[in-house]
């Protein structure tokens, strides 16, 4: 077990390094932030001075060494755009995105798991059709467009919730729903598929024949065995949300989280900030995957880590 965790941590470390190096090489070797930071008609001397000040006139390997040195000392440098340490900026924004993701994920499992289970228990019933159709819709509707539609109906027409910004719960409902619909669809599908599979197994027949109540057969036996697939899918979707869907949802709803920050960082070509964001996001996703795998024995004690 301990050996497995160490092996996986090394693996995660390799992934984080690989992502960091890729971003580093891509940005420094190809990109040119000076064009974004200075007006187009800026004199050549000013361009050279700024490049020197940012340290991007040095050879690539020198830049990489100084960057690595900084990272080993826990510093990603100052954000070019904001002028304060990049990690501080990320630290301010990350909790907001985590909160939003958490709410969206909560919506996805609270509705997705029961819906998928009910669909699997009554295949081909109207409930199954409803679950299949709505989950298919959930994974097909572009979430940013759904967000705009929700704003149109529930904020502009009905005035139930606010259109944008941060504050009390009335600010969080619409973005969380817009963000949660896709994972909701995916989780419904995976729960339904897995439950159908499990309900065909012999142990279900055994449990039923010894007279166990049907809801116990389903919740304690079948659902538990379907757990691994559900947890895997959940972790995957959380990862997608943190570094993907939240970007566009936060832009639509004016939520100043990490996703919104990513867009600004790209627009400003702020390399230190970008580096810090990719580092944090890649670490988060790697650790999430590790924790997910470590929960497998809870669902199936036969899982052994080697």
């Amino acid at each position: 077990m301990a050996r497995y965790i160490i092996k996986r941590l090394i693996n995660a470390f390799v992934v984080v390094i690989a992502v960091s190096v890729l971003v580093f090489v891509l940005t420094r070797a190809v990109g040119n932030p000076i064009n974004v930071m200075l007006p187009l008609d800026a004199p050549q001397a000013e361009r050279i001075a700024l490049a020197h000040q940012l340290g991007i006139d040095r050879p690539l390997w020198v830049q990489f060494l100084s960057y690595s040195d900084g990272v080993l000392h826990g510093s990603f440098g100052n954000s070019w755009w904001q002028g304060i340490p990049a990690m501080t900026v990320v630290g301010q924004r990350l909790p907001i995105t985590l909160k939003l993701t958490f709410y969206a994920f909560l919506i996805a499992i609270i509705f997705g798991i029961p819906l998928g289970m009910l669909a699997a228990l009554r295949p081909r019933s109207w409930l199954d059709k409803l679950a299949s159709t709505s989950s298919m819709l959930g994974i097909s509707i572009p979430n940013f467009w759904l967000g705009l539609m929700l704003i149109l109906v529930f904020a502009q027409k009905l005035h139930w919730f606010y259109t944008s910004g941060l504050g009390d719960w009335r600010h969080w409902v619409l973005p969380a729903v817009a963000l949660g619909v896709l994972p909701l669809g995916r989780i419904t599908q995976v729960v339904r598929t897995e439950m159908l599979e499990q309900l065909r197994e012999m142990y279900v027949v055994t449990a039923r024949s010894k007279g166990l109540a049907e809801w116990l057969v389903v919740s304690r036996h079948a659902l538990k065995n379907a757990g691994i697939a559900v947890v895997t899918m959940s972790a995957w979707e959380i990862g997608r949300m943190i570094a993907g869907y939240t970007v566009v949802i936060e832009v639509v709803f004016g939520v100043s989280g990490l996703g919104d920050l990513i867009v600004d960082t790209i627009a400003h070509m702020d390399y230190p900030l970008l580096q810090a964001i990719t580092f944090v996001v890649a670490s988060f996703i790697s650790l999430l995957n590790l924790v997910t795998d470590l929960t497998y024995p809870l669902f199936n004690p036969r899982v052994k880590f080697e």
Partner: protein
Amino acid sequence: MLQVVSSALVVDRMDDVRDKRPRFYWLSTMARKMVKDRLALYAFIFLVVVILMAVLAPVISPHDPTTGNIVQRLLPPSWISGGNHAYLLGTDALGRDVLSRTIWGARVSLEVGFITVAVAAAVGVFLGLVAGYAGGKTELIIMQVSDIMFAFPGMLVALVFVMVLGPGQLHLMEALAFNGWMVFARMARGLVVSFRGGPLVEAAEAIGVRPLKIMFKHILPNIFATLLTLYVLEVARIVLAEATMSFLGYGIQPPQSSWGLMIGDGRTYFPMAWWLVVFPGSFIALTVLALNVFANWFSTVIDPLQKGQS
């Protein structure tokens, strides 16, 4: 023992693949099955309509999609009071016809979707076949690279790519393909591994068929149908990704028209000029839905024993 979720409906647990090999159906059987499954039929019809829109865009679009008439700006759809019957779905802030831009947008969406995934699939399937067939170190390296890239946050990588290369359709496609080959590599490798030890490959090897020929003539046809399902699912995913990137302003650039870009532009005039957002968004949603429904149907037709179908 670690399963990895590779795409919407695909979970690669390869031990049960072999006894559920895709069955082959003739087109007439497929057509009959499609008519029986109403949802799949509607999805197919809608896809045909969108493909026709894309192909015939220069012929059928009533106005030029890039030049507008500023006098006729922000007209509502023609059936609403104030609408002009020359502009069926209304006009945008520059007086451009929303219908024409939607029709041309179909072309961009499908182009990006089908071509990007074709490139990603070609690279991925090739690497997956090689990894699965060769085994050993080759397999280890290819799969390790694919695992590392899988852990990359996709959207972030696409944004960085576009930031560095500059926005535009070609760069967007490169970025999305760079991030899309791993699903195919994994799937192909898994399928190949399930065949590797089997009689099919053994027989071919026994009569001295070369490895490359075994891969492409003996293994590939057997796994083709399954890969085709994945292809359609990935096109759906990429169409969404293109829309998202264009909405953010890092995908298709003006004056070209794309559904995502139309929503991004129209957002400023939202919710008064709702038609700027509602129509292109509906087209994205319906196209992606149709692709997903079609892929789902296809996978049950080629493999009736597929899990989840009782």
